């Protein structure tokens, strides 16, 4: 199918379930789909394809939104516009087909609850659709979210935190130099921060011992003192 015909079919599919079905069934005939699909997915292709076809048919109206396309104004007779629509449609289909092959491969029973790509990120955390639309916020306004006094207050709190950190002297058995205080200094307060491998060698402590002490003990202790200092 040439670019112009595919572009036109996609446009029509947005308004017609029959055309959406025709489009879905045409996926298998698009040479790029097979070419771009990872070879590792081929054993799962036959089982995944009907699922993908169903998904494309049902969600074709979400395709333009996912790729910021305005198909109502797209001129499918213009080779550049039609080529652009085809490129994005192929990407979209290959992405869905890869996901469906992945599902077939691992067995659908393990699949966690999924979301629609067109829903806002974070929507499943509760609330209605209306509740999920954020207030207008711009990038430039981020730096003035906090007033000078609030920044000052946070600075004071961080100073207090740094003071409290000095008391975090717990360490893994047999490695007295590898204290939480030492790790915090090297990971958080030093600029640039040190890598774990470097710290492990300098403190003569196995890599796994350093990182597990950090993850199991230090992070928790840090969280506790942060809570305490902000409650003051």
């Amino acid at each position: 199918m040439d670019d112009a015909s595919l572009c036109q079919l996609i446009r029509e599919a947005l308004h017609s379930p029959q055309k959406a079905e025709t489009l879905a069934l045409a996926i298998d005939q698009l040479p790029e789909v097979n070419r771009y699909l990872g070879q590792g997915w081929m054993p799962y292709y036959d089982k995944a394809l009907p699922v993908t076809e169903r998904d494309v048919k049902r969600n074709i109206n979400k395709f333009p939104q996912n790729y910021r396309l305005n198909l109502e104004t797209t001129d499918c007779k213009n080779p550049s516009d039609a080529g652009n629509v085809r490129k994005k449609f192929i990407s979209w289909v290959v992405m869905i087909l890869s996901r469906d092959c992945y599902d077939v491969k691992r067995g659908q029973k393990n699949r966690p609850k999924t979301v629609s790509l067109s829903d806002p990120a974070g929507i499943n955390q509760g609330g209605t659709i209306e509740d999920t639309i954020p207030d207008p916020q711009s990038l430039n306004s981020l730096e003035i979210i906090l007033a000078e006094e609030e920044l000052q207050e946070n600075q004071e709190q961080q100073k207090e935190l740094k003071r409290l950190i000095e008391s975090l002297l717990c360490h893994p058995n047999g490695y007295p130099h590898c204290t939480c205080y030492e790790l915090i200094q090297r990971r958080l307060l030093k600029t640039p921060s040190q890598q774990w491998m470097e710290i492990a060698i300098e403190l003569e402590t196995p890599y796994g011992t350093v990182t597990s002490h950090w993850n199991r003990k230090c992070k928790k202790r840090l969280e506790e003192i942060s809570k305490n200092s902000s409650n003051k």
Partner: protein
Amino acid sequence: MKNIDKCELTILLSKQAHQDAHKFASQQSTPEKVKQVYTNTLAVYAVRHFLQWLGIETDLSAGDSWHPVIRCFNDMADLVIPDFGKLECRPVLPGQTAISIPPEVTEERIAYIAVQFQEQLNEVQLLGFYPAIDPQSPPKTIEISRLQPIETLIDYIDRLESAQLFLQSDEEVAIQVMERLADQPISEIATQLERIYRTYNKYERRYAGGEFLASYMPAKPDFAFRGGAPIVDREGSDDSQKTELQDLAEELLEKLDEIWGGEPINQPVEVLRQWLEGIFREDWQPKEAVLTAYRKSAEQSQEVSRVKLIELGSHVVALLVSVSLDSENEFSIHLRLYPAARAIHLPEGIQLTAVDDESGEVLLQTQADEKNDWIQIIVEGGTQGDRFSVKVAFGDISITEYFAI
């Protein structure tokens, strides 16, 4: 050429995402840090949403970017996939052409996802991903043009999953590796093995793999540092141990080669005969656009040229590739390396090497001396289907480009 085109995938952001971003940003002490934490939080939300759509579970609260103290001091936007690894979600602000890789995110990351922000914060675009880097010589930035399409992230995740499964299996080579690297998270071992497999040709993998295994062996007391990278006393270690580790790495990478089906994933391969038909990938630009010396001169010959900017640590160089058809079946390829980013000379010692991908044999190699303006190698007599790679190396850092005729 089996590369899906890169497209930007739009993700809308919810009120919930903004509320968390605002909450985390409100704990910061400078305006810059407020902006950084806000955008980092939104980037994590966007990537998490994409993974949810893929059916991959994540744990927001397990990430350091959700830790009230760590996010105050580190520039982190990590997202944890439980029992699998961490993704780093890097914001790209308007006008930026690369993602930054601060030192705190160079380890324990399976991939870096670029998240494009616009002035309005109601949506972002996922630009693509970059697979794991070498933590011992990490780049400071990754150019957007070097990213893999976000649509193929699942291929990469599946590949790492299969490596992790193999390492947990009762295969002899897997048991031996896991015994030696008992201290390491399995995700890190799988990720770094995949990186070695992806970035080295099959003849170099044995040595790179051996080095990797050695670097994670318990360090001897007389360890040394070179350029900030931890070097286990390799000079002192006996040759038999080195050979043993190389044998083990070779066997392991051969097994993974069987599992992964023989080809590095998404490794862009430039098909040079297509250049003669005017078909180029977007990261190869016209030479006039990159190299000032060519801006005034018109194309003189029948050859077709394209340039790619290559970042090697703090140095940027331009690789100019010119392809021409010499006779009915024979092509010649000129590979030239120029300084870029306002540099006048190439970094002294930078190497340009062409390797036959079938035999692993070094075809040609050259190295820049002090004050070289450019260096060049010429591959002649190439025929359709020939595959070769070109490695640009400076010190411990190298980038390999793959070509087919």
